[in-house]
């Protein structure tokens, strides 16, 4: 408890408060803007933190991270265009509420729900991350290998409709991560005898390209871009007593459900909104209201994506392993500051860790205070034409990629991955397996080679250790589940046919 209070105390210093405010405001703006999602935006803004002091840099990034989730709902509700993918579900009932003249109530419920879920998520994160990290201190290479492998298997199940496409992108990501000097032997790999590739490919330009620049290329091919028109009459901002009563349950359920989904590898923020919407519709006494402007359909998903944002930080902060692109960028921000997130972070950098947690509590309150009265202003940002926005994004990406290592080669990498991101959009293939392949590839290789050294080449030893064995068994079950499910269904069908015959 003392640690949390110390963290809140650090976060409450004037400079950190200002940075937190800038972060949440930037994040909200980014979330509001259709097209540029939080992943592209944070990677684009990452270079701004390079020259900052570690605590301040991480507070800024965390502010943008949570602000992005808040802001995404505004354009979903007002103009039926989701600011980011995690707000797609909000358009279903949120926009219907706007058409009924209840835009203010929808925005307020969304902000309050995000606040409640964010708070639940941060409380759970505060109390869950330290014990997991404590446990993870005893983890060796086999456990890390099992975690990463199972992470990939779960991710491939949740990301795309095709397992083959997900596996392909994960493997492509791992191949990209191999480029450069091999840490174990010092051998140059896949460098094509050029000096540019000796240090490997930095993942910041890769993420910027896949998420930020691909958006610019898409905008360029659509010649006539018209600003989105919105009805900004927000006379009745506060929800009615009945609306608040109906929203309370979905907010709490969404927050907890979102947090739990956030712990799973994959696009947790997106999945949590669908799961929450489905749950609320299922348990509602009036499921017929859903899709016609039900406030529960706004409160639940908006709470869920904020809960998931906090949940997704647990594996990063306690194990040092990010399971989705957003925490992966946070990992990058940590590493740039010379801090390795994971089990040792709480002992090596306790002040930074608790200040970050403290700033999340404060940032969450700031977001509520900022979002309710300034919602009209943020809504106006969604009017910003892509004609103006996209050249800004492009040049920010160019400079951002350059500033990581002061190398024009990184700008070329950015553009190559921008074109690849554009191609993946056209092929309807989600790029996050590729990103995680790039980020987790080195950990997979290092942990595997260290494990085989410990086991003297006996791979069955992976299954003999309780944690790695259990994790690998789960991985095997996940992989074989479609086959097992098919067999169970076939058996049930045969049984029911036999019973009918009797």
């Amino acid at each position, binding site marked *: 408890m003392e640690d949390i209070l110390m963290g809140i105390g650090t976060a409450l210093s004037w400079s950190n408060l200002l940075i937190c405010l800038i972060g949440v405001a930037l994040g909200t703006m980014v979330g509001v803007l259709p*097209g540029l999602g939080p992943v592209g935006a944070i990677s684009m803004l990452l*270079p701004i933190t390079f020259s900052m002091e570690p605590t301040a840099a991480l507070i800024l990034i965390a502010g943008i991270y949570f602000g992005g989730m808040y802001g995404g709902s505004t354009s979903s509700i007002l103009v039926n265009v989701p600011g980011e993918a995690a707000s797609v579900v909000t358009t279903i009932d949120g926009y219907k509420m706007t058409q009924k003249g209840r835009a203010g109530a929808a925005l307020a419920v969304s902000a309050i729900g995000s606040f409640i879920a964010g708070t639940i998520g941060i409380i759970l994160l505060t109390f869950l991350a330290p014990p997991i990290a404590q446990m993870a201190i005893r983890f060796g290479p086999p456990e890390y290998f099992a975690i990463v492998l199972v992470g990939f298997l779960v991710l491939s199940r949740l990301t795309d409709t095709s397992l083959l496409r997900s596996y392909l992108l994960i493997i492509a990501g791992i191949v990209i991560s191999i480029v450069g000097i091999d840490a174990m032997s010092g*051998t140059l790999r896949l460098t094509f005898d050029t000096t540019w590739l000796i240090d490997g490919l930095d993942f910041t330009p890769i993420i910027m390209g896949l998420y930020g620049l691909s958006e610019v290329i898409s905008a360029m091919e659509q010649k006539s871009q018209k600003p989105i028109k919105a009805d900004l009459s927000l006379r009745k901002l506060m929800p009615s007593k009945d609306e608040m009563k109906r929203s309370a349950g979905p907010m709490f359920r969404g927050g907890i459900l979102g947090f739990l989904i956030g712990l799973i590898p994959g696009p947790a923020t997106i999945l949590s909104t669908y799961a929450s919407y489905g749950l609320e519709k299922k348990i509602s006494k009036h499921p017929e209201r859903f899709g016609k402007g039900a406030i529960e359909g706004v409160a639940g998903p908006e709470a869920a994506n904020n809960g998931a944002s906090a949940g997704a930080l647990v594996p990063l902060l306690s194990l040092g392993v990010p399971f989705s692109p957003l925490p992966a960028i946070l990992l990058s921000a940590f590493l740039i500051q010379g801090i390795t997130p994971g089990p040792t972070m709480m002992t090596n950098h306790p002040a930074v860790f608790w200040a970050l947690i403290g700033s999340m509590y404060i940032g969450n309150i700031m977001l509520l205070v900022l979002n309710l009265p300034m919602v009209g202003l943020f809504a106006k940002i969604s009017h910003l034409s892509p004609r*103006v926005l996209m*050249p800004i994004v492009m040049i920010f990406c160019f*400079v951002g990629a350059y500033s990581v290592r002061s190398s024009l080669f990184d700008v070329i990498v950015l553009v190559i991955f921008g074109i690849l991101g554009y191609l993946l959009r056209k092929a309807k293939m989600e790029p996050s397996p590729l990103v995680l392949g790039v980020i987790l590839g080195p950990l997979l290789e290092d942990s595997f080679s260290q494990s085989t050294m410990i086991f003297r080449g006996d791979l069955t030893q992976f299954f003999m250790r309780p944690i790695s064995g259990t994790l690998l068994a789960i991985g095997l079950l996940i992989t074989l589940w479609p086959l097992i499910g098919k067999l169970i269904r076939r058996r049930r069908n045969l049984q029911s046919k036999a019973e009918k015959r009797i």
Partner: protein
Amino acid sequence: MTPILFKARIITAALLLVTGLVTVWQSWSLPMGKLQAIGAGFFPQVFGTLLTVLSSVMLLLLFLQRGQVKASPAADLQEETVPAVEGETPAVEGEEPVHVRGLISFIVVFIVFIVLTHFAGFVIASMAAVAGAGYLLSMRGWRLLLLTVLVSGINYLVFDYWLGVSLPAGIWFQ
């Protein structure tokens, strides 16, 4: 499956196949080692081979599905029931057209940016890139001029002046 989706998946699979083959070729001479001490070539060869095999399977599956290619985007909307693409709703994705001109224009803007950065420095290169991108996005007149000057100026001030990132000055002005 629409023709656009089909072509995009063919190109992606072909690209991954080439990547896999190049990985195997480049790591062929690297030592594989033994299981108790794996060599530098183990991971690239294993994952290069996996990439080659799986991308070939994807190409084969696409080849077998070539008869199902339909002009209507509705087919894609039915196929993609999970929100597979981050940042887009399925309805928008299904109807999104491809204009090769947009992609080529972007590549031209990028080449101009790199060449100008090398010779004339970042400020002039960024002005040319913003002006080019704005023009391609149908921006004209004083708005384009204002955007070009403001974006390039702010970028220079933020990164070079404030954050201390030494942006390239260009060999003409060194």
